[in-house]
């Protein structure tokens, strides 16, 4: 079971829970996020832009490691992994 924890800002009346649990085995972080996006409609487009890149001020942690320092969206995901999607330290 892979757990993806999305920011509360993605929660809505139809998707009240920021935690998405994925039964299917996912090869990569990108695939896991796509699966999570099916459970939480609208979230994928806000994490990844139309060119396929993670948005600049979004951080994704796989079992506590920032995927920017791993293989990015191509990082392999263990079957019991936890993925956190967080807003980066930035703002104005």
């Amino acid at each position: 079971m892979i757990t993806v924890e999305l920011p509360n800002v993605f929660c809505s009346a139809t998707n009240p829970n920021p935690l998405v649990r994925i039964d299917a085995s996912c090869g990569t972080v990108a695939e896991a996020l796509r699966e999570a996006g099916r459970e939480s409609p609208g979230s994928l487009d806000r994490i990844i832009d139309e060119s396929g890149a993670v948005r600049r001020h979004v951080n994704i942690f796989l079992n506590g490691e920032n995927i920017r320092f791993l293989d990015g969206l191509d990082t392999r995901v263990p079957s019991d992994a936890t993925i956190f999607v967080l807003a980066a330290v930035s703002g104005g």
Partner: protein
Amino acid sequence: MPVRTATKTKRRTTSKSGKRRSASSTRARSSSPKRAQSARPKAAAQKRTSGRQALVLVGTMKGAFIFRADESRKKWTVDGPHFRGEAVYAMLHDTRGGRSRTYAAATSMHWGPTLRISDDLGVTWSSPERQAVRFPEDSGRALAQIWQIAAGRASEPNVLYCGVEPAALFESRDGGETWQPNKGLLNHEHQPKWQPGGGGLCLHTIVLDPTNTRRMLIAMSTGGVYRTDDGGKTWRARNAGVRAQFMPPEQRYPEFGQCVHKVVQHPDRPGRLFLQNHWGLYRSDDWGDSWHDIANGVPSDFGFAMQMHPHDPDTVYIVPIEADMFRATPEAKLRVYRTRNAGQSWEPLTRGLPQSDAYENVLRDALSADSFDSAGIYFGTRSGKLFGSRDSGASWTEMADGLPPIVCVKTGMTGSA
């Protein structure tokens, strides 16, 4: 239609003096007490449809605010912020085709840009699962921000345009639900040489020929002015006479690459254009084929904002800024300059505006005009002040202070006469 979500906002009123009051404390004095008192957004929206109402849409770096008043425009109600924490660089209120539809381009620093639509004056906004304005995947580009939302011609009520960053033009033919990039610009041979200005590489200005559906002009920073005469298939740079002061002396009048800040046009005289440049104030009388300096008597020809008078094709408003290296109003005086003779001379408009210690800046889309008989002119500052005039700029009132930095001021009108 995408999912729509209600926006939690606070409603306030401001008086002619600009002093802000909470709605609950001003019910007896408000010119529209029922509207101000309403605790039920839907009921408020229904009320707003009776009689003509002035709208001033204010986009800021931390959300949007909607100001409303009756035709006298003496007292305003305010609600917002909509899209809390998100930068709103572009808004539009569109009444073509019998609609009363409001558009707002809200950009979250973290979660990206979204074009939002409201058919009830901001009580609810669309919340699309998938961004409708998006580059083709094979373009290698990604939408950073929507800088302009422009209504199409009156004869094409379902047509809208978006100018975006990185510089590109999008078109919708279904009232803003779906959008397609203009491929003539997307794949333009100059595109690799366009460079970002201080605000990013943005297409910020869209000017339509009301009499010729195949002609349109756009402007970008930096890249300059481009015009199509074949419905958007091909685009030609139209910058002859516009200087690029940031280039070496022998390259200051290039074919393209200028940092044009704004171009305006009056629909009664569409071939004549006015242009506020990154240094330079110009007029064209031939749809941009040539440009001529009209900086006659202004304290600086640097600036961002420019606005036509709604009823007079000879009258234009600007807010001169001292310099690119000191982006503040010259002599610390907040002055709107107006020409009433198409740029032969300019006069400062100061009544009601601070004339000391006013180090203000007014950005390219933060100056606007309504279309009432006695024209309302409005502008917002980077310091969060909103000013309005009900007499074409002769006198001004502070409508709000303490807003987040204002990046967009647009107007609209609801109801019938």
